[in-house]
Each structure stands twice: as structure tokens, then as C-alpha cells.
């Protein structure tokens, strides 16, 4: 934390300056700079993405044939459990909040860093440790009850299940700290004039996500702690034979994990809301609607958890309100979809790779949202619960939604991270391979599910073989697309075309400073006069005049 020494800092706390650390380790490994920490989150998250992706390919390879045969059924159970856990907690959440959140929103609100840089360092370093713990549970008998780990199955699993609980608990601690950090930063460190109604929409998305990280994650921590205590010390919470209740786990787990679904999608909404107006050269349609609907989604997210439990023996008088509330959450989400579509309407659309992913996001997320409405209806849910229809639904939301958002963000903000552009041709190959592979993999799962193919099975009825094989082969196409992406990132970081400060003619604050930005972000904290999205107007900032000349920032002479 900052000491109380007298300090040169125009604009109070928003502008307080700390010394730039020297040496590779302090600068890039144990860094307190939010931009470096953001990049660290992205790199670590993508490493876990590769591991979890290999597990996904293991699943699909197993399902090539009706009688399986690639791995044993026991191993198969471990593989899908770790695949799900890793994708949710080690990939999507850290990349979207820790990665893009850290990297972008302090720049967008005109802050020099987050409120608690050292806390930020701590929350990052908890994350890879927890990730290694999660994957190491393979060595001691990984959990086998899926990413939700319902008791009593999870109570009987091998020691790896306790390791799993401990690892997720740690990720939760990391998320909670990040959430606290983000809320305080967004409340206290905005540049002068950056009122809430002038914040870029990505900041709004992070602002809606941060309380979810803070509150929902703690609720999950309680559930995980209880599971851990029960497994290690035999304290009965969930074991029905000792008076506990297995449904209690579902309540505690979903009270977190439903809001977590919005942790995984709201920042992606934010990314899309930045990419669309920039490449359509039009102000975003319904700025306030998009901003407030994020808050509405975050709030309503806490009231719908029991829709995951329609088949768990919930009393009928409870099913109805949860069904209606779940339908209701479709309204703010629909508002966003309409606003984005209206933004595109009549715009001068530049089909860059980022824009392609953003448009792909709208298409796929809408599909996932519609099947979500299906599943919210109790009678339909009773029919398809535990089938591949559910698998199709959440992959459309999480891959077609969150991951497409992540890719859009990568292509959009890569210049800000590295000073270089990602290769557009490779980017488009990545997009088409991924988009086609994705639909080939998950679209057939809808009808597999409707026809009754259950989830979590290592072998299945031969009548489902054709579409499973189709899905598996498509998943290899997706993986090929990912290879192109990783090649692109690695080669472009080194040899890519130099981007300059503002390659996309963006109008938010992060584009007004050099790429990559100086340690202090801004030489002088700018003043903000209006929304960043009015493309026909002059830029609404003052005090950015000498940001782009290359002399070190004003107070950097201090060290």
C-alpha cells in the first residue's frame, strides 16, 4: 500500500504515483502493475485452456464410438469432471475478470492502477497455485461427479475430491479479493468527469461482475468448506444417513454457481459492447439500457438458482416462482441483444477479426439464450434434464458466448498489450475453423439430447453414433482453429505489424495512450466530458495532449 509521504500526484488518489520497479522479476513476474497482472492472468488462463481443451478432446474421442474404448469409464468420469471445473474456474472466470478486467478497465476509467496493487499481486498468484492443485487431483483419484460434485457421489470419491474442493476454494479467495479490488477502484479512482453515466460499457460490465465475485464466491466457499470438512473429518452436512441433506449442497452450490454464470458472461457482454461501436463506427444503441441491464442481470442472478434443481424434489410451489424469475432474466439479456443489433444497423461495418467474433458472439449467444428459456420451463426441463440438450445449451452460452467474447477481446486489445497487431488472415482462419467446428460439435447435441442421450456416459446406445461421431470430428476442427490462434498470438507478439497507439480508431481512454502504455498509464490524468461512443463528435477528453510523445511520464524522473 502507498505510504503517507508527500507525493506528486495530480488529482489526488486517482493520480498517485508509485515508483516503477526495476529488474525482470519485479517487473514481469511479481509485478504490481495492473496491465502486467492482466497479461499474466491471460497467459495462465490460456495454458489451463489448453489443458482443459485436451480433456475435452479426450471426451470427444471417447464418444467417437458407441462403446467408447479410448479411456476407461472411471477415467472418463474424472476427465469430464476436471474439464468442467477447469474451464469454469481456471479459464473463463480468470481470463474475463482477472485478465481483461485488470488489463482494460483501469485504463478506461483513467486510473493509474487498481486501488490495492499488492492485493492484486496476491490474487493473481493464488490462481496458478490453485490451478496446479486442481490438475494434481488426477494423481490421487480425481473427482468423478462432474464440475458440480453433487453428494453423495462426491462424498465417496477418492482423495482428489478434497483436493478439488481446496483448489476451488483458493480460486474463490482469489476471485473475492479481485472483486473487492475492482469495486473500490471503480468507485474511487475514476478520472475527473468520469461519472457513472460516462463510463465505457466494459467498465459497467466489470462493475456488475465485481459484487458477484465478492458475494457469490464466498457462498461457494462455504459449500466447499462444508464438503471438505465432511470428507476429511466426517462432520455430517450432506450425508443423508447421518441426518444431513444432499439437496443442501445443491442449494449452497447453485446459490453461487448460478450467479457465476453471469460472472462468466457479463464481462463478455462488456467486450462486445466495446467492439461493436468501434467497428460499426456508430454510437452504441441504448447505452443506459445496456449498462442498467447488466446491473439487473447481476441482481436477478441471485434469485434464480433453484432452476438447476427442478428435478431435485423441490416443492411445486417453489418451482413456479423460480421458473418465472428465470424467464424474467431473459428480458435484460434480450435488451442487450436488441441494442447490439441496432448498433450494427446502418453502421459502416469493418469486418475485422474482432468484429467477426463479436457478430459470431451475438448469433451463438442468442441460440444459447433461447435454449436457456426452454430449460427454464419446468415441464421441458423435467424432460431433458441430464441429457445432452443441457450440454448443448451451456456450451452455446459459455463457448459461443464467453469464449467468443474472449477472442473478440484478444483481437481487439492485443495491440494494447503488445504494441503489435494479431495477423488478420490467420485470425479469420481461426474464426471460421472455430465457428464451423463449434456448431458442428454442439448443434447436434440438441437433438441427441431431445432424443434422450444422457450426459456423463462413457458409452451409449448405437442409434446416437452418427451424430456423436459428427460432433467429435467437428471438435477436432475447433481444436485446429485454436492451434491457428495460439500460433498467431505467439508469432505476432514477436513479429506482428506495429500497431501504434490507436489501430482501430477507438474512442475509449485506453486508445489515447501509447501501446503498450507507460507504467503510470497516464502522464496527466485526463478530464472527461462525455460518452466515448459519439463517433461524429470530437473526443470528450481534455488533458491528453502530450500523452503520445515518447518522453517518460511527468513524474517518472523521480526514480
Amino acid at each position, binding site marked *: 500500500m502507498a505510504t503517507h509521504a*508527500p507525493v506528486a500526484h495530480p488529482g489526488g488518489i486517482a493520480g498517485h504515483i508509485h515508483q516503477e520497479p526495476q529488474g525482470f522479476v519485479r517487473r514481469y513476474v511479481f509485478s504490481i502493475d495492473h496491465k502486467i497482472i492482466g497479461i499474466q492472468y491471460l497467459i495462465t488462463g490460456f495454458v489451463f485452456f489448453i489443458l482443459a481443451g485436451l480433456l475435452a478432446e479426450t471426451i470427444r474421442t471417447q464418444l467417437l464410438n458407441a462403446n467408447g474404448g479410448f479411456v476407461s469409464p472411471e477415467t472418463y468420469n474424472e476427465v469430464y469432471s476436471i474439464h468442467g471445473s477447469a474451464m469454469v474456474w481456471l479459464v473463463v472466470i480468470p481470463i474475463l475478470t482477472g485478465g481483461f478486467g485488470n488489463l482494460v478497465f483501469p485504463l478506461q476509467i483513467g486510473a493509474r492502477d487498481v486501488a490495492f496493487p499488492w492485493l492484486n499481486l496476491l490474487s493473481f498468484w493464488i490462481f496458478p497455485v490453485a490451478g496446479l492443485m486442481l490438475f494434481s487431483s488426477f494423481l490421487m483419484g480425481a473427482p468423478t461427479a462432474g464440475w458440480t460434485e453433487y453428494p453423495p457421489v462426491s462424498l465417496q470419491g477418492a482423495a482428489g475430491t478434497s483436493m478439488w474442493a481446496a483448489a476451488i476454494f483458493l480460486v474463490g479467495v482469489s476471485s473475492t479479493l479481485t472483486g*473487492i479490488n475492482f469495486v473500490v477502484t471503480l468507485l474511487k479512482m475514476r478520472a475527473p468527469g468520469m461519472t457513472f453515466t460516462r463510463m465505457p460499457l466494459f467498465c459497467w460490465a466489470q462493475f456488475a461482475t465485481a459484487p458477484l465475485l465478492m458475494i457469490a464466491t464466498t457462498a461457494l*466457499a*462455504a459449500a466447499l468448506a462444508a464438503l471438505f470438512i465432511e470428507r476429511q473429518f466426517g462432520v455430517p452436512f450432506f450425508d443423508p444417513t447421518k441426518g444431513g441433506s444432499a439437496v443442501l449442497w445443491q442449494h449452497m452450490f447453485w446459490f453461487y454457481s448460478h450467479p457465476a454464470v453471469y460472472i462468466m458472461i457479463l464481462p463478455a457482454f462488456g467486450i462486445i459492447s466495446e467492439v461493436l461501436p468501434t467497428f460499426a463506427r456508430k454510437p452504441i444503441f441504448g447505452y443506459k439500457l445496456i449498462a442498467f441491464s447488466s446491473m439487473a442481470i447481476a441482481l436477478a442472478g441471485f434469485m434464480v438458482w433453484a432452476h438447476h434443481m427442478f428435478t431435485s424434489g423441490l416443492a411445486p410451489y417453489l418451482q413456479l416462482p423460480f421458473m418465472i424469475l428465470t424467464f424474467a432474466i431473459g428480458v435484460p439479456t434480450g435488451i442487450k441483444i436488441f441494442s447490439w443489433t441496432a448498433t450494427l444497423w446502418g453502421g459502416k461495418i469493418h469486418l475485422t477479426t474482432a468484429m467477426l467474433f463479436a457478430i459470431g458472439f451475438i448469433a451463438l449467444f442468442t441460440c444459447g439464450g433461447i435454449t436457456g428459456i426452454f430449460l427454464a420451463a419446468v415441464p421441458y426441463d423435467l424432460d431433458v434434464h441430464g441429457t445432452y440438450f443441457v450440454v448443448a445449451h451451456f456450451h452455446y452460452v459459455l463457448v459461443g458466448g464467453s469464449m467468443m467474447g474472449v477472442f473478440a477481446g484478444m483481437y481487439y486489445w492485443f495491440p494494447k498489450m503488445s504494441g503489435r497487431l494479431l495477423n488478420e488472415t490467420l485470425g479469420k482462419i481461426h474464426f471460421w475453423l472455430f465457428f464451423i467446428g463449434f456448431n458442428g460439435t454442439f448443434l447436434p447435441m440438441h437433438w441427441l439430447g431431445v432424443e434422450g442421450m444422457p450426459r456423463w456416459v462413457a458409452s451409449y446406445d448405437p442409434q446416437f453414433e452418427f451424430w456423436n461421431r459428427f460432433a467429435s470430428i467437428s471438435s477436432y476442427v475447433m481444436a485446429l482453429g485454436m492451434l491457428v490462434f495460439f500460433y498467431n498470438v505467439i508469432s505476432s507478439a514477436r513479429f506482428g505489424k506495429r500497431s501504434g497507439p490507436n489501430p482501430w480508431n477507438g474512442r475509449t481512454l485506453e486508445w489515447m495512450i501509447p501501446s503498450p502504455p507507460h507504467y503510470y498509464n497516464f502522464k496527466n490524468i485526463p478530464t472527461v466530458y462525455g460518452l466515448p461512443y459519439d463517433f461524429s463528435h470530437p473526443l470528450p477528453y481534455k488533458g491528453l495532449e502530450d500523452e503520445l510523445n515518447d518522453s517518460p511520464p511527468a513524474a517518472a524522473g523521480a526514480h
Partner: protein
Amino acid sequence: MAVASVPHGGVHVEQPDQLYNEIRDLRLQGFLLALISDCVLFSSFVFAYLYLRNSGQGWPPPGIPRLDVPFAAWNSVLLFGSGATMHYALENHKHNNFMKYMLFLIATIILGAGFLGGQGYEYTHLIVSEHITWSGSGIFGASFFTLTGMHGFHVFVGVIFLTVLLMQSAAGVYTREKFFGITAGTLYWHFVDVIWVLLFSIFYLI
């Protein structure tokens, strides 16, 4: 972190106190948010307890004796009293009565430790005489010892927190203007108090 302490030409240098105030506000907000998420942790377990309690076998479950309510009530008085003394400690610090502040702080620590002692006595009684344990007494043992134990741990941390404050104050760390640590300690102590009101009501009164 280290703050660049050399004013640079042309850059406006603000009063250190103003910066201190801003940093204090920042930390206070962060600390409050941390307490809120801690509240959620307790709420989850409280929810779990109420859920298990209402899952249909009557309460207390067969074989579990009534808790010693009067003893727990007297013990709670210690904790609530310490909330009051902590309040006066902070007030006296604000009004620059150093001696009174120290006395109230010491009283708070003693009362807090007393509460922990009482809880220890209660636990010993339950475990040794009534044979109620954490893992062997069904959902009663599970929820009672987990929740009160979690709270006891928070009180324990609080006692250490306040002891550190006491030593820092004796060493003159805090001044009339700069006392973020004391504010945080007071907040934390009140938080622990409020949680106990809830736990006492749901375990002993209803």
C-alpha cells in the same frame, strides 16, 4: 508501495493529509467489502443450519440436550459489553483522551478473551459431560460447532488484532488525525458482535 517522493516541476503537490484521507477512504471501503463477503460466508452456514434444522426431524434432534441458555447469555453480555467499550475507545481516541482510549481498549481485549474462555468452558462441558461432538452428533454437532467455532475464531483473530493495536498505540503509531487501524479494528469488532447476535438468537433463543 514506495511513493515517489520528489515533487516534479509543474506538478501540483498536494497536502500529505489529503492523500492520507483519500487512501484511508480507499482502505476503509476495501475493508468494509471484505467484511461484507465474510458476512456472506456466515450467512451461507446459517442458511445451511436453518435448512437442516427444518428438514423434518424436530429440533433439537433426539438425544441432544438443551443448551445452557443462561450461561451463554451471561457470556454474550461479555461480548456485547466489549462492543460498547470498543466504541468508547474509538471515541476517546478521536477526542484525544489517550489514557481513556488505552483503558477502554484493554477492557475490550479482556472482555473478548473472557468470551472466548466462556466458549471454551461451554465446549468442554458439551464434549466431556454431554458427549456431543463435531462429527459424532449428527447435524446438531455439525452446524453448532462449525458456526460457533467460526465465530470464535473470528473473536480470536479480533483479540489479536486489538492487541496489536494496543502495542502500536503504545508505540505512538496512531495520531489524532491518522488512525485508520483503530477504525478498522472497531469495525471488525462490531462485525463480530453483530454476527454473535444472530448466532445467539438462532441457536439459543429459537
